[in-house]
């Protein structure tokens, strides 16, 4: 039967999973806001991040949570390479070309991961495996709490970076009027690289946290991308608070669907949310009208 504790647990699960999606969606949103580029291969960066975390954890034997930072750095480097070699060349042309390039990248990333790590599912075992906080009838795994804390800390740093630093100001300027900010002496190519690297780093962090909660294989990247998309559309393009609220709402909706409708609805619910919102508001929930 569905009782109160099930509902509360569903909410907490939803928030924990949602917070990982928030990281991914924020990265995607940042890249979209500044570069007007939609990176459909963003989920692949999450997948690579999870594998990097796995390798760091198995090879060096370090605490899995330290792997988060290493993974962020390495995925940011991969992001820089991707931006310089692929997206830079098709930026601002036909929107379809960006989609095609992302699709090619999905093929490349997925199969490089298959070659390096094999197709079998893997999991990162955190140091707090099977430990949980008991609150009356409920028990909440420490991993989820730590994952949520990580997300909060990363997002606070991100907001400070964007609001308070010079490069954050340049990013905001570029997102508003790229040509005018170029005239003001901002090197927008460097801003693009920085933004893409930042978005990739967030995906890398999300990857390691994802790998501690779910088992992963080289093909998991596509669905998180779409979920991140649904979240961005829910929360509004280019808005970080929107992505946070959208992500949490989305995580709760997904968990509720899994608990009350059954596991096969986990993914279909993402699209149902996406499609319903887009039918009602073709530009997104908080999107600008008449662009």
């Amino acid at each position, binding site marked *: 039967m569905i009782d109160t504790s099930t509902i509360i647990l569903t909410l907490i699960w939803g928030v924990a999973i949602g917070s990982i999606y928030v990281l991914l969606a924020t990265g995607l949103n940042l890249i979209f806001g500044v570069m007007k580029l939609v990176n459909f291969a963003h989920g692949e960066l999450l997948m690579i991040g999870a594998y990097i975390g796995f390798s760091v954890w198995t090879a060096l034997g370090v605490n899995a949570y330290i792997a988060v930072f290493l993974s962020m750095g390495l995925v940011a480097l991969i992001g820089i390479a991707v931006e310089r070699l692929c997206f830079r060349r098709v930026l601002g042309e036909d929107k379809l070309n960006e989609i*095609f390039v992302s699709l090619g990248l999905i*093929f490349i990333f997925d199969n490089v991961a298959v070659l390096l790590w094999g197709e079998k599912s893997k999991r990162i075992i955190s140091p707090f495996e099977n430990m949980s906080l008991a609150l009356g009838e409920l028990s909440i795994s420490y991993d989820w709490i730590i994952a949520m804390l990580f997300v909060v800390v990363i997002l606070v740093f991100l907001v400070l970076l964007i609001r308070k630093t010079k490069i954050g100001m340049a990013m905001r300027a570029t997102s508003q009027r790229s040509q005018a900010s170029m005239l003001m002496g901002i090197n927008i190519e460097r801003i693009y690289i920085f933004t893409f690297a930042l978005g990739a780093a967030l995906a890398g962090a999300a990857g390691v946290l994802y790998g501690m909660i779910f088992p992963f294989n080289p093909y998991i990247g596509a669905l998180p991308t779409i979920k991140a998309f649904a979240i961005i559309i829910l929360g509004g393009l280019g808005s970080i608070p929107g992505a946070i609220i959208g992500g949490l709402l989305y995580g709760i909706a997904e968990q509720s669907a899994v608990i009350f409708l059954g596991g096969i609805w986990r993914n279909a619910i993402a699209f149902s949310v*996406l499609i319903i919102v887009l039918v009602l508001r073709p530009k997104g929930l908080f999107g600008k009208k008449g662009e």
Partner: protein
Amino acid sequence: MFSKEQVVELTRSTKFRVLVIAIMISAVVPLVIGDPFLVHVMTLVAIFSIYASSWNLLANSGQGSLGHAAFLGVGGFASSLLAINFGIPPIIGILIGAAFSAGIGFLIGLTCVRLEAWFLAMVTFGFSVIAETLVSQFDEVTHGVLGFRTPLLVPSGLPFYYFAVALATTSIVIMYLIMKSKTGLAFRAIRQNVAEAGMIGINTAKYKLYAFVISTFFAGLAGGLYAHFLRYISVTIFAAENSFKPLMMSVIGGLGSMEGPIIGSMIIVAIDSLLPNIDKFLQPVMSPLFPAVSNVGPPLRLIGLGLFLVMIVIFFPKGVSSLIRKVYNYLKK
């Protein structure tokens, strides 16, 4: 739709001659070589030419679908289920399946035509996942989870091959004529700039919906043909791979041209069917480098395909067919 002069002009064009030669080659080659595997591969090329051309037509109206497998699957399931449950002959069944797919395409199109390119890509991808979920959910009706054996359309082998080629030629010519007509002109105007197309009086939502319905009709037709060709259908037909294939075929072959999707489907089907032969040579060389995988062939091929796609988009946005055209023009000089 077309005046007599236009028809005469069309038959005198190089394109028409190439088309006739291509049909003749595709009719004669299997008779001369007659290898069953080659016939199998060439039938696949014919089926995927329809499928890729239908995707190409939609992309030509500025709408890049990432979920065309939904329509391939709907067409395949509709025609196979009609044949099994109601005894409708598959030859009519594939047309009903195509019409059914177009009907669903109309409904999905209604939600999609107002969306921007990236939203549309996501939403269409979403519809293919929802279609997959629904077919698995209503397994008593669809029998999709385990799949089932589809009835015979035309005897397999050469008869099926000629049937597929005839159907592919008809479909592609129809799509070509649509693209050359006023409707097609509107599609291309929309692709170049939606706002401007709207300003010169094109009802963009209406024409985008037309493109959606036409494209999903032919995708459903290809799906019916595919299901009866493989003699088996299951929910795996909705896999993302099948959604990405027509995109890769059109882009690699040449987006927006008639011959592009055909050339692209030749390339992709050839890569899929013929290259596995070199796996046994590749395996001893590469497997010590990558101990994690048992068979290094498929991932290496897919990496190659991904690199190929990215490079085509960056260096030859008009695809392989533009290269062929350049060579032809050079030789003519």
